[in-house]
């Protein structure tokens, strides 16, 4: 089974973000980056499927030079090779992002493409579904389990309010994987060593010869959210803060 896992590199979860002078994106220079957590679960799902059914896992990542560290991590965890679409993604919309990814993988003829259910930076939750549409593949989103069967796969989809559903579809297909469905593996020392000799195919958007598509939804400005509520913060030692909080909850909010 040939599996492509699309992963993204995003600012680390606890980053303190500043708005860039342009007002159109964040200040990227001082940030630490890591793999988009939902994509880490997609990679894990891909590696487990390979262990069970054999084949190959290819990590696909679009991002600037710094994305190499996330690609190395995927290779160290067990991906066999990688495709790096060397492009500064920034606030690129999900249609343009998916067009880059589609162009980069079209020649691979993978059986399955996996990705996380959304990115922790832009959070559109659309790239996977758009990629499926551009490649003409059936898809499933927010997938908890993948079972390979005669003629295709059977997946377990999560719905809202504690409901689930099984869906069958033929291969090739694209799935977005729900976060938290399994324990993530760590890269082993051996894995890290092996990763150094694994193939990374670099492509750029000019090599992919993409027609620029007219933007239909333009990001005009990014800004820090205005506080809708004024939070009363209690300071001092933990003991003092706790005492003040309980006082307020009892006599002001009257909830205890």
């Amino acid at each position, binding site marked *: 089974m040939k599996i492509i896992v699309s992963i993204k590199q995003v600012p680390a979860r*606890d980053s303190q973000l500043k708005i860039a002078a342009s007002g159109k994106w964040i200040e990227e220079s001082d940030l630490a980056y890591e793999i988009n957590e939902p994509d880490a679960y997609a990679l894990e799902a891909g590696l487990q499927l390979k262990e069970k059914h054999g084949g190959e896992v290819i990590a696909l990542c679009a991002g600037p030079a710094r994305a190499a560290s996330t690609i190395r991590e995927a290779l160290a965890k067990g991906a066999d090779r990688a495709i790096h679409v060397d492009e500064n993604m920034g606030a690129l919309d999900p249609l343009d992002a998916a067009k880059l990814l589609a162009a980069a993988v079209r020649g691979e003829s993978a059986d399955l493409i996996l990705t996380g259910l959304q990115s922790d930076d832009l959070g*559109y939750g659309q790239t996977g579904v758009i990629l499926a*549409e551009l490649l003409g593949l*059936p898809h499933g989103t927010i997938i908890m389990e993948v079972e390979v069967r005669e003629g295709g796969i059977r997946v377990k989809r999560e719905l809202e309010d504690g409901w*689930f559903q099984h869906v*069958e579809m033929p291969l090739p297909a694209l799935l977005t994987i729900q976060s938290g469905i399994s324990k993530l593996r760590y890269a082993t020392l051996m894995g890290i060593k092996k990763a150094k000799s694994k193939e990374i195919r670099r492509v750029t958007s000019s090599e992919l010869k993409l027609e620029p598509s007219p933007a*239909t939804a333009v990001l005009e400005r*990014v800004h820090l959210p205005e506080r809708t509520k004024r939070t009363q913060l209690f300071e001092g030692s933990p003991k003092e803060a*706790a005492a003040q909080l309980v006082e307020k909850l009892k006599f002001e909010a009257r*909830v205890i």
Partner: protein
Amino acid sequence: MSAVLAVLEQRGGAWNRMSFETLAAAQQIAREMGGTAGAAVLGKGVDALTGELAAKHLEKVYAVEHDLLENYTPDAYSAALRQLVEQAKPTVVLFPHTYQVRDFMPKLATSLGKVAVSDAIAHRVDGGALMLVRQLFQGKVNADMRFTGDGPHFASLQAGAYRADQVAEGSAAVEKFAPALSAGDIRTRPLELFRESERAVDLGAAEIIVSVGRGIKEADNIPLVEKLAKALGAELAASRPICDAGWLPMERQVGSSGQTVAPKMYLAVGISGAIQHLVGMKGSRVVVAINKDPNAPIFEVADYGIVGDLFQVVPELIAEIEKRKSS
């Protein structure tokens, strides 16, 4: 004239609770754009639902019916809506940001060469153009998105961003729309829906909820928040990562994939407040947050807060509550 179409969600003849929020948004945006609002419902046999919509202030209600729309598939929904949009020519098409909409809206928009603005939280009409606000970086940053060029423009709206009780009553003409669908074009086969366990805990009825998130670090620390919940006579709840890790059962999860709660007090311990969590609890009367990160989005919705190490603050809080009880 611009027309705003709300595509409402139903399953087995019952509305998704977010549908009427989208309807209210469509009416409001249409009014501000100087246009009309309409609604569409997809399924097989949706008369009872469209009958209900006939008493709302809408230009038109579309009953999009076909045998192949009885059970949701992205292929059938996307094809049916594409045909409806091509005929009705709305300027803006709005959806509730549900798991189902996430499954087909990007496909529909892509098939028409458009980018959908997903999970919007607010709007503004500016010189006749619609601007939507959406959250980036798990709610730490907002972005203003402006639609450009001709419609249809697609957007989904976050749960709770608009109020269902603001739907304007009136009357609407119901029109049947029969899309041309063929079973051979539907590539996925949906099977029965199921639940894994009966829900034993109804967090919706709790007056006080103590909820715990990633900040608790490991399963061995859960008793600390259990003790706090006990001191307050509260139900214990959690954000998704805690339930995924198996530290608390899934039935105690609050958020878009768990329960929606609105207690008298919601005390969030070590919860950063990702959007998916906030939509499940922001209706709480009083929100208290204890978190080490002063910029955590949970403080956007908190009335009271302590910025600090929960492992130091929570024991003091328990002691203080116990002291007040005995005095």
